[in-house]
């Protein structure tokens, strides 16, 4: 199982706040590191992958555990050169 470098609790937050929190967490991480986001707003299943696609990160998995939606992101996993985020 892949190592998770950082976990983010975005439960009870409604979109776009989970995306903003994920964006802020990723900004402090290095390429290749993994962020795991725990959220409850089903909107994250669309919004976090969309944010990852346009910013060059890779969504490794989206799973549902009880009431949580758990999304694992590999930072810079799509190999896009980041321009101004970092």
């Amino acid at each position: 199982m892949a190592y998770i470098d950082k976990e983010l609790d975005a439960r009870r937050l409604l979109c776009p706040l989970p995306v903003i929190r994920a964006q802020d967490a990723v900004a402090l991480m290095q390429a290749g590191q993994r962020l795991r986001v725990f959220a409850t707003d089903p909107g994250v299943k669309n919004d976090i992958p969309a944010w990852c696609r346009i910013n060059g990160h890779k969504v490794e998995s989206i799973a549902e555990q009880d009431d949580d939606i758990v999304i694992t992101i590999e930072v810079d996993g799509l190999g896009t050169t980041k321009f101004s985020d970092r």
Partner: protein
Amino acid sequence: MSTQRKAVSLISGGLDSMLATKVIMEQGVHVEGINFFTGFCVEGHTHAIRNRDRKKPKRNNALWVAEQLGIKLHIVDVIDEYKDVLLNPKHGYGQNLNPCLDCKGFMVRKAYEWIRANNFDFIITGEVMGQRPMSQRKDTMPVVQRESGAGDLLLRPLCAKHLPPTLPEREGWVKRESLYGFNGRSRKPQMALAQHYGFSDYATPAGGCCFLTDKAYSEKLVDMWQHRSTRVYELDDIMLLKVGRHLRPRPHFKMIISREEGEGKFLEGYRKQFLHIRPLSHKGPLVLIDGEVSDDDVHLAARVAARYSQGRDADVVEFEVISPDEHRETLKVAPLGQDEIAPEWHI
């Protein structure tokens, strides 16, 4: 070889900012998007809460626009900073509690701070002269430039030909002749340009994207301020105003009554902050009680809540009363009749 210029575009998720961005990208400028989250953005929230809306396809329009354009999008949390804009608008409010002109100035100022911090050259907005009564008038557009500090680094590609040339135009970073002179409330020019670019799917043109333009929402906000005797708010306050029925049976307390399962689940998240009641003997709503209440107040609240439960025609409905520290009691009440719920209780 000339340096590629960089612009940041205020992306709302609507058509105008999408077009303005595309117009500048077509001129070879590197554009990234920025989107400000004030807490009052309509985007997504109520859809996320209500079960019935969960079945509808849902997307964040700003992210969607950025993806269609192939640009990055920076979403910025301005919830705390925005309080001063809402509470002390220099230019006043629109029809409801919408401080549109101050809001635009604030967002352009934040974008200006962003371009300076990130080495970008100028700012783009999708404003169209004459389209909005407060912030997009010929006389107020210079106000936004001046008060934001952005000055002539602010370019409005869709109506630039009605405005003096900005620095990006004068320096030749963009060609003024390739910009537009849209004016007024007609959406036809934008739709034609959308068709030109092959954009067939976009968010409702000119659709409101802020709860502060909504009359019912603004009334709830005013009610909250009046009964707290102070005009302050936190994010939870403004989120709760978007959820459920709000009734104020007595001046010192308000009830937030879930209308369906999704709202009930959302309100559950606040059970450690509010006294709340839920029916035990019948199916019915979770109700948060906001205010300092006596036993008699709770009794009245339960009678009101019973009216919105499946026990509305029963002689007695049993409730569980749960305090924020999880102390539980039960209470049996007779539901109020429909005509006993005064219309003025509804906020």
